[in-house]
């Protein structure tokens, strides 16, 4: 008991001694709590980050494909990041249709040229994922309905895309996404 009292006594001395009224114990207290706080927040980093795509999922994140064999008017479904990818070689008529539309009047204004690579204006590569809620639109495979604008049609909630994969009618907010890709040769495309 006596000891406690004397400690308390020392304490009061410190208070009066402190130039700006800051006690040593306050300092230790703040330092300790801050260290614990920073440590706690730092712990969250692995806890949150483990949920993000793991290395093997990311390793699959680029895909190579040969577009040479696709005939005009034909499309293929490939897989990119475990999602469908539509690769379509447009016919001259489809290119014309896409260019005839005034891009600025569209919900998501983009021209066909902005959605293809220079020199490959007839190769339309888009995700096969409706920008509404993620269904796979119809129109890539032989015999599927292509919707009112001759491109793709999403049956889930009725989104119509045109020959440039642009949203023309229905609930989807944006055009079919054009993933990052480049032509590594005349016919080979590296996506991602």
């Amino acid at each position: 008991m006596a000891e406690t009292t004397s400690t308390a006594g020392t304490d009061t001395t410190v208070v009066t001694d402190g130039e700006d009224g800051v006690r040593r114990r306050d300092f230790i207290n703040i330092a300790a709590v801050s260290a614990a706080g920073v440590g706690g927040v730092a712990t969250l980093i692995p806890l949150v980050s483990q949920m993000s795509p793991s290395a093997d999922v990311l390793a699959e994140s680029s895909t190579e494909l040969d577009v040479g064999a696709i005939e005009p008017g034909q499309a293929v479904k490939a897989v990119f990041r475990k999602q469908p990818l539509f690769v379509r070689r447009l016919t001259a008529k489809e290119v014309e249709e896409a260019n005839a539309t005034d891009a600025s009047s569209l919900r998501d204004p983009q021209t066909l040229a902005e959605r293809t690579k220079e020199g490959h204006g007839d190769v339309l590569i888009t995700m096969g994922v409706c920008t509404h809620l993620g269904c796979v639109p119809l129109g890539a495979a032989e015999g599927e309905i292509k919707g009112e604008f001759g491109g793709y049609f999403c049956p889930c909630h009725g989104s119509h895309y045109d020959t440039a994969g642009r949203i023309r009618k229905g609930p989807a907010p944006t055009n079919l996404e054009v993933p990052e890709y480049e032509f590594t040769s005349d016919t080979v495309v590296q996506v991602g």
Partner: protein
Amino acid sequence: MSFPWAQQYTPTNGLMRYFDEKLPLPRLVYNAVGAGYPVPRNLNYLWNFGVLAGFCLVIQIVTGIILAMHYAANAEVAFATTEHIMRNVNYGWLMRYAHANGASFFFAVIYLHIFRGFYYSSYKAPREMIWLLGVVIFLLLMATGFLGYVLPWGQMSFWGAKVITGLFGAIPIVGEPLQVWLLGGFAPDNAALNRFFSLHFLLPFVTAGVIILHIWALHIPGSSNPTGVEIKTESDTVPFHPYYTAKDGFGLGVFLLIYFAMVFFLPNYLGHPDNYIEANPLSTPAHIVPEWYFWPFYAILRAFTADFFFIPAKLMGVLAMFSAILIWFILPWLDKSPVRSGNYRPLFRIFFWILMFDMAVLFYLGGAPAEEPFVMFSQLATAYYFLHFLVIIPIVSMVEKPKPLPYSITEAVLGSDKEAVLGENASVAK
């Protein structure tokens, strides 16, 4: 809490006395659902649904843990292990059908429990906390149901997961990274399936914890009742046991008859045949719908087809869908009427039934294809839904002239005022 006239726990044998001294668990049970808990004497069958909901949770946990013994959360084999449960595991079909239908019955019971709360304004003071915790339980239940439905890894599982996580993608800026983070990939796959299983296993136990808080909060003011008049004297109450253990027991029997009729004779009636096709990331089923219990909210989601000022339609739909439930959190403060029970609120009662009709319409539309005229009807029904809570309820509670309330529960039951006024004090008054 308890009322002063609540019976006290008095252990009759030495063992229980010993136990109660070391750990007063028997006492806790006695005071919570035994003779030590006085309950209004006039509760009707709508007051059964709380106990039934608790029972559903028990069914889900027992059958769920058994399913988890045979199921493997790996995208390669998840569908196959579900079929293995159905075909090879002894009584596996029973466990799975009991679990899948158990989820449906859980929601049916919870909806009735919530609508009971709407009609009798059980959300009003002093029971706001019970109501708020109830809404939390409902949200947990929805999350659990959604996560569970993904596990069999059929076509509906996969596309449900895709569409629902896609909702987060509607959030500006952070949406897409958030969706990728939730899924652990760019589309639902092994990572997503595994974490969904982990969380599907966890959330029911979190729910159980919140239920304990819900009941704790309930035991402070005690149950409300069909008159909405608070308990005044002992004659307004009966002990929970044996009166309501018996009444709840009877209700449980009826519930089990209907539930097992479904499990045994119509086990797939509430399910979707497409979920017996293994998940295929490259092909969407023609008509994706969630489970029936999500339909009203799915209808609200799809009602937004045009941009609203600067907010894109897709985001509006998501916001509206979540708000449709979150709005329940402020209901206790929107309804200012001092009278609780709809029995004494003629105007409120009319609007209550219109809301029920509106909910029925939303239920129907959520399961219908996204075509006209369904879309237009969803828009009207959604508009009315929000109008009901944000405009009609506050106005009704201000302008309505309620019918006279009975003096007490006893008077309402026995029709005689004297009993109520004198009641247990009769001897003092003499």
